[in-house]
């Protein structure tokens, strides 16, 4: 059996072109990022504690599903925003959260 390897015929790896790929790839991290920001703004403006907590969850989910090509700045900013929403709602109103039932 001859050696099938041909070192002379090596081609380099080219990362797949992403012009149409983002649409095909999983949109979860983008949705969760947006949702997280919306919830944290609601929590800050309307002083709803459960919104702020949901925002923290959303930013965590977005981080877990993120692609490596995505920059960390966006992730960190949404995370910080959600944390600040939680902190602000508790500073303004230190009462514990009441369940909806």
């Amino acid at each position: 059996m001859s050696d099938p390897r041909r070192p002379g015929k090596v081609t380099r790896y080219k990362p797949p072109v992403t012009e149409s790929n983002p649409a095909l790839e999983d949109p979860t991290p983008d949705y969760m990022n947006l949702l997280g920001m919306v919830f944290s703004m609601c929590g800050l403006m309307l002083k709803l504690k459960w919104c702020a907590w949901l925002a923290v969850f959303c930013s965590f989910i977005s981080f877990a599903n993120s692609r490596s090509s995505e920059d960390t700045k966006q992730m960190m900013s949404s995370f910080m925003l959600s944390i600040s929403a939680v902190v602000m709602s508790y500073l303004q109103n230190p009462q514990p959260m009441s369940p909806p039932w």
Partner: protein
Amino acid sequence: MCSDSLGVLNVKLKMKNLYIFIAVLFIPWSFSLAKYDEFEDGDDIMEYDDNDFAEFEDVSEDTVTESPQRIITTEDDEEEATVELEGQDENQEDFDDADTQEGDTESEPYDDEEFEGYEEKPDASHSKNKDPITIVNVPAHLQNSWESYYMEILMVTGLLAYIMNYIIGKNKNNRLAHAWFNTHRELLESNFALVGDDGTNKEATSTGKLNQENEHIYNLWCSGRVCCEGMLIQLKFLKRQDLLNVLARMMRPASDQVQIKVTMNDEDMDTYVFAVGTRKALVRLQKEMQDLSEFCSDKPKSGAKYGLPDSLAILSEMGEVTEGMMDAKMIHFLTHYADKIDSVQFSDQFSGPKLMQEEGQLTKLPETKKTLLFTFNVPGSGNTSPKDMESLLPLMSMVIYSIDKAKKFRLNREGKQKADKNRARVEENFLKLTHVQRQEAAQSRREEKKRAEKERIMNEEDPEKQRRLEEAALRREQKKLEKKQMKMKQIKVKAM
């Protein structure tokens, strides 16, 4: 006479006693008067009663019982009500009405001096005696206990659980990926000169490592072999790092996938489109993939004719291709590992999934490449262990065999003619669809050119040059008009 004298003596004695008694009485009376002289402010007059022995009464007792009552009334606690009750009970036990009055009158001056700063007076506490005490529950938000924050504790626990799952899932995926690579490394290294490349190094040297694209996707690029340009292996694991996904998988089981894409050299593969796999996968691919939808118009056929299990079906451009592909070894591979095979696709017109483009944008056929595409399911359907990766090794051998086979397989003359006709047909269809768009595009390009010409003429500063350019443009337009007229004439003549 004796009795008379005795009588007188008795009287005298009695008188003496009386005098002594009066004297004895006089001393404390004078003493009390002296005291009265000292405290002439008036405040403490009330302190002393008509009773001369008032000063010897136990005042300390009163102050002791008063002070606890005092201190208790000023505290703002839940126990306030109950202790007050006790205090008042004691008062009722210890004193009669007279004594309580006494206590009042005696304690008030003391209270003013000793208990300055306290708002409540004992009078107030005594009036409460008559009202019933109701113990009210302090609302949750005023309680200073951790128990009232149970929702927050739940949230934090949820977050911690998510983080724990992230770490565990990430590590599991990592272990699975490396187990796969360790199992397959030898086979790959014996077949490819370059195993592992991330495209960033200056020289083409094997990194010998997987590229981690994500917490659940790992890539490996192999190159340097006869027949093929390169092979991209993608380990698409389940999203074990995302708790939501883990919970969703409990409802709907899914399995990890290994996707292998071999890019063939142009001269090493003939022109055909062929696919085999599970019926469900083929139906989905036929809808999604550009080449399968265009060239394989029939529904997936059963492979029972060739001895394949019922779970597998075949999609082919023409029967000859199927005949050629289904040789003994391939059938052996497909039957033995049918549970792990999701789809196998050989295509010379591979361009990926159908692109969802707007009407106006589709002016050119997408670029095609000769490709072999394999999708395998990792056994275990989610609950895989690193050992399961060993069972995928024979599938890699199948891939290698397929590469060699694709190079060897050539269509005969008839087959080639059919294939060429098919491709021409597809191209024509495409051109017809986009005819209008292409015309519009050509028109807009021409207009753009004219505009650019005009702008150049306007911008030209030299008036001479301007005139010359304008003349040249006019001449060109006239020529075009003439040509059109000629064509119209020719058509008219032909029609006649």
